[in-house]
């Protein structure tokens, strides 16, 4: 029984069938990688999990509840957080404020009219946000403007923001895209550390095979909108279907 169960999901854009009968089963506590060539439908699939897109047919169940038709903030409140391909952070706010916002969202829900309370007096929120920054080694950049961070730091900040919500499922869309080797390795270590400490289920979309094979406990290969193989990492590398999908075998 997986924490995220996707059954027969179809999604078309006009005449283009982006997803065809996709089945996916992410088991609790695992790092599950979704790989595939460009245009395979990986990001479309992820967008169906977070409420950005609604599948034409099929079901997406998270933790026993359907995610279909729910708005992004409702889905997030059930325990799904997402890290974007290009870091989505609150650029004009400080690093610390960036992390406090998800802490508030976790504690107070999707809306609360707390206009007379003071941010300064919210001790538990501040403590938690500080702890998150310590966890991702960014406490020294606490008062910096988030826009002035390096790309790698922005990604770490975004991860801290997602983790501050104690999600049950963390979705990562190419967490190392455009990163230098050293930063990539840092990110791998960070993700491994998080998973070891918190036992969070993660679904990762990734191009970098180094990252995939360092982290993933299970891999689904997506090609032309369908899952062609779902297996353990050691069985994926030599799989003929996978090689065909990547190298463009005869059709």
């Amino acid at each position: 029984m997986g924490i995220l169960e996707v059954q027969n999901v179809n999604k078309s854009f006009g005449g283009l069938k982006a997803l065809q009968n996709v089945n996916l089963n992410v088991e609790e506590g695992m790092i599950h990688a979704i790989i595939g060539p460009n245009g395979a439908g990986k990001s479309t699939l992820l967008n169906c999990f977070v409420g950005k897109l609604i599948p034409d047919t099929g079901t997406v169940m998270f933790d026993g509840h359907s995610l279909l038709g729910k708005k992004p903030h409702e889905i997030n409140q059930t325990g799904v957080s997402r890290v974007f391909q290009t870091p989505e952070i609150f650029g004009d706010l400080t690093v610390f404020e960036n992390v406090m916002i998800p802490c508030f969202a976790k504690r107070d829900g999707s809306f609360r009219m707390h206009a007379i309370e003071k941010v300064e007096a919210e001790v538990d929120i501040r403590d938690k946000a500080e702890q998150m920054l310590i966890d991702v080694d960014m406490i020294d950049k606490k008062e910096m403007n988030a826009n002035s961070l390096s790309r790698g730091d922005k990604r770490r900040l975004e991860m801290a923001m997602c983790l501050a919500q104690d999600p049950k499922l963390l979705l990562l869309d190419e967490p190392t895209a455009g990163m230098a080797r050293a930063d990539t390795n840092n990110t791998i270590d960070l993700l491994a550390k998080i998973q070891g400490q918190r036992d969070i289920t993660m679904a990762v979309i990734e191009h970098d095979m180094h990252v995939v094979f360092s982290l993933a406990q299970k891999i689904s290969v997506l090609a032309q909108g369908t899952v062609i193989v779902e297996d353990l990492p050691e069985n994926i590398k030599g799989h003929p279907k996978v090689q065909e999908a990547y190298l463009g075998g005869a059709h």
Partner: protein
Amino acid sequence: MLGLNKKDSKFLLIVIALTVCTPILLQPFPEGSGLAQFNAGYPDLMQRFAIYGIFAIGFNILFGLTGYLSFGHAAFLGVGSYSVVWMYKLLDYNVIWGLPLAIITSGLFALAIGYVSLRRSGIYFSILTLAFAQMSFNVAYSVLTPLTNGETGLQVYTSDKQILLGANEPNSPHLFGLVMNQSAKLNVGDWVFTFNIGYYFCAVIAILAFYLSLRIFRSPFGLMLKAVKCNQQRMNYTGLNSRPYTLAAFVISGMYAGLAGGLLASMDPLAGAERMQWTASGEVVLMTILGGTGTLMGPVLGAGFIKYFENIFSKINETVLHSWFSWLPDGMEDAIVWVLHFFVGKGWHLTLGMLFMLIVIFLPGGLVDGASRIREWYKNRKGGGAASSETSTTPAE
């Protein structure tokens, strides 16, 4: 103090001190001197500073924090004014009835307009609010004549019931007998200072309004509004519903506008449809941008700046210009006066427009940005650059 930290308390105290001393500060030139026409310490204008300050503070809660640019806030100003005048007509001239009603009706009005307009963002939101405000203006101007008295404007007639009106009650707006248009004059040498009851009434409310906006800026709610401006996508994917936050900000700023409109009618018991016109909505946008969007003090400064120009520059005419340049040779005097007369009197908008362009181009953060740059430059000069790294990290208030 009052739930503020040390820095904010100091800031609030400075604002209070400046507001209380306004009648003195705005009267720097002795009466009868050539510069006396630049004095702004007369009741009418000071009341406007305070009232439009409130309007701009409220507008800044929406525009400065959430980034939603409303082009229809004058509608709430008008609704506030009509509410207050109706209370004069039905009850009596005590403003205590009208002002709460102004806040409530404008709040409800803002709730309805905001609920529809906030379905869109960016330029579409601005156009929707503009459309609503123009609709309100036209409805007030012609359709709802029984309620608004059309183009004549709503005012109190002797035939009005005024059921609470006592025998000795003043027949102009007052607060429990404190008549708004009464003033005390103080002569110090050649200087004349006017202390007006209406101004101080507006000033007390303006300080309360400023304090409330300060609290909102420092609250978790304020942080969420800033998050809306920064990145709504991230906000939604962080489990926060941006719609009620923006709607709450819209309603709060609409209530501020209603209060300002109510105060306008408290100073002068009239309400006309032109108060709702789009030029009035545009004016508050100019005030906020000119002063400094998203800063606490900026909108108030912007409001003061524009109202000062409107009242002082528009009074300078060709005769005044001739008297200034009479020391020049005749031909030159005429030439200079000919050039300058475009920028004063009826042409004061030209001066304001040019200043607005200069500020937007060279000081995108508005007057507050300019002030903090001057402060920084001064500190650098004094401290030999040692303090520069420290000052540059503190954002302008």
